[in-house]
């Protein structure tokens, strides 16, 4: 069998070795139901608290609560049920678009950046009719990797007395999230995007806001998310957070080199290929592109049969590939079925812990793309 080349890190980062070891360690401790009053219960609770601390350090927050959920999607669903009026951007993940059921959609420009002028105009009008508005804009788009002007979004939203949620699933581990600097009311996170196991997410929220939980029961997670805590998931999330916490300005330089190298080779070999969000401020690991004559699903199948794992548009659980609402929101309607995403490891630390992707392999991939 050929060596699998994995370039779908925005979908899932493989479980980190340090995370795996931390999970094995706690598996050996014993029964860890954090709600129990006895020795093992206390042990479990302590492990969860440490994980919570690691995550709060990663996003630099002291005042906010962190609630563990089964996924970022669950966290978003729980949050949104507390609001009747939610203003979202047109490029949000389906977790936001579907669960918000929102008609209040703010467009993006051709580079995939949310239009702040329209946001302001929109809120100005909307605030006259609605009291409690939630603005939800993602930090980093999962398809294009384009970084959204979250600081400005918060500023505008606050001006009109709105609360702000940010889906930071794709920002975590790729860029610095500093909640001391940007006063978000709600932030949602996903563990497996930084090398934790799947099945663990988190909602970060401001203490002053009263939220109604989605799942009722035994009162775990301060009454906000019932059900015995997923201690393996939580431990893994905390450990992964600790691993990527030493993020500095330059810690994506290797990743950026590989992405930019690949982009350059693609441009040389396949000049007709269109690269999305190239002019915008993008995270270092993501490259969304489209060949005008090749449908995304065909490209994906052919690449997969050649042992390249990438992704295309948004696939539903049946495996059916639907058109990309992100590409179409950027004004490229004719390419909404053609886009293919290549995503490298989120940062150098994770890149180094993986099998290093070589420029030789990227050359081969680019050549294959050019001759699809």
């Amino acid at each position, binding site marked *: 069998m050929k060596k699998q080349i994995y370039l779908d890190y925005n979908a899932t980062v493989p479980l980190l070795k340090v995370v795996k070891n931390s999970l094995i360690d706690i598996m050996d401790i014993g029964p860890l139901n954090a709600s129990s009053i006895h020795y093992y219960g206390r042990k479990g609770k302590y492990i969860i608290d440490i994980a919570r601390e690691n995550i709060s350090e990663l996003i630099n927050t002291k005042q906010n609560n962190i609630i563990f959920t089964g996924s970022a999607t669950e966290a978003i669903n729980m949050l949104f049920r507390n609001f009747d009026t939610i203003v979202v951007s047109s490029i949000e993940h389906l977790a936001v678009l579907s669960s918000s059921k929102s008609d209040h959609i703010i467009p993006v420009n051709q580079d995939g950046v949310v239009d702040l002028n329209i946001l302001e105009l929109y809120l100005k009008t909307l605030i006259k009719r609605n009291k409690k508005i939630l603005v939800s804009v993602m930090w980093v788009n999962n398809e294009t990797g384009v970084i959204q002007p979250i600081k400005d979004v918060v500023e505008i939203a606050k001006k009109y007395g709105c609360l702000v949620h940010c889906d930071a699933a794709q920002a975590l581990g790729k860029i610095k999230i500093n909640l001391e600097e940007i006063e978000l009311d709600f932030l949602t996170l996903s563990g497996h995007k930084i090398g934790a196991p799947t099945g663990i997410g988190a909602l970060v929220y401001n203490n002053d806001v009263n939220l109604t939980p989605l799942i009722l029961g035994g009162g775990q997670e301060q009454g906000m998310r019932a059900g015995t805590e997923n201690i393996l998931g939580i431990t893994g999330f905390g450990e992964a957070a600790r691993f990527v916490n030493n993020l500095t300005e330059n810690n994506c330089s290797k990743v950026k080199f590989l992405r930019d190298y690949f982009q350059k080779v693609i441009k040389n070999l396949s000049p007709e290929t269109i690269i999305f969000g190239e002019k915008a401020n993008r995270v270092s690991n993501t490259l969304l592109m489209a060949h005008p004559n090749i449908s995304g699903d065909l490209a994906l199948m052919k690449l997969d*049969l050649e042992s390249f794992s990438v992704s295309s548009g948004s696939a539903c659980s*049946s495996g059916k590939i639907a058109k990309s609402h992100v590409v179409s929101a950027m004004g490229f309607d004719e390419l909404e079925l053609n886009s293919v995403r290549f995503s490298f490891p989120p940062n150098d630390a994770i890149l180094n812990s993986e099998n290093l992707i070589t420029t030789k392999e990227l050359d081969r991939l680019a050549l294959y793309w050019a001759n699809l």
Partner: protein
Amino acid sequence: MININQVIKEMDLEGDPSNHRVVVAMSGGVDSSVTAALLVEAGYNVVGLTMQLYDYGKAIQKKGACCAGSDIYDARLVCSKLGIPHYVLNYESIFQNQVMNDFADSYLRGETPIPCVRCNQTVKFTDMFDRAKNLGASAMATGHYIRRKTKKGHPSLYTGVDLSKDQSYFLFATTKKQLDFVRFPLGSLTKNETRSVAKRHNLIVANKPDSQDICFVPEGKYAEVVRKLRPGSVEAGNIIDVNGNILGRHNGIIDFTIGQRKGIGIGGRKGVDDNKSILYVVGLDTKKNNVIVGPKEFLSCNKIKISDCNWLIDLQQDSEFRVLVKLRNSSQPVIGTIKVNFDNTLAYLLFDQPQFGVSTGQAAVFYNINEISHILGGGWITEAPNKLAETNL
């Protein structure tokens, strides 16, 4: 016991199986699953493809219909079990344009369409073919019960060995060019043999019931689907007899098929309850929006016109010859004489014995009169004048 060497021989691909990628069109049913299983066993490099054809959420789901929502998951499970890649092709808009719309329009023209043939003709054997070729496949295999045999380097089509499952009626439109690329590994198997292979591989679909209906028509209620697809174009009208007398009302001619006897909705007529006076639908007048009913003799049809013919044999120009012809999937072939026009696309067929209840929109599929299993070709019945044509209605 199935002989794998026989499967490889019938695949008609040169060299070692492992050198060939073969795409299997997988519906999630037992037949296509076993097709994939046999080809994996034979050593081919197999890729499963499943078509997503319409929005299952919108159509009411029904067990027993092909390609219902859960079928995609079945196909994927089978592929995982067999250890082969599986992909879903999103053909919703193509299917809507080429099959469902055609289906609705055909009923509105008073015909009885066969969407499964249209689907084979358009989506499956064109778009899916192209995809298979794009994926570098040497062939595309389906789970149809029909045989492909190569004689003197030219492939021909033969009925499936299991005649109770033979699908030649639905595949008459397969072109010679398509026949070069398509393979039917189940053609020499009986259904029981197929199920035994599924059991041997422990496939979850081993006991799955066969599909009965048109996949996008839940519970056989085709008229509901037509009304949904073409809102406002179905109108109520009169049910009249062959003399033009109004016997009752109907809610749309799409609810009726030529030859239909039950459920016409004009029961309880005085003094006409003996067998000879049983009324059949003998005509659908789309211009006046009338359903015409009459005794069985009015259904009698001596000749038909067949359009868009597809031939799997080499024809002489203006040829006239004797054939066996199937007018419905479920009926036995009958004998007639066919006369083909100069470019072979049109044909007229004169039956030896009058046929009853022939409907336009259905297919006429021709078989070799000397070798009944050999499929010669077929076409669409565009004219089927019955005795009603002699009246002025």
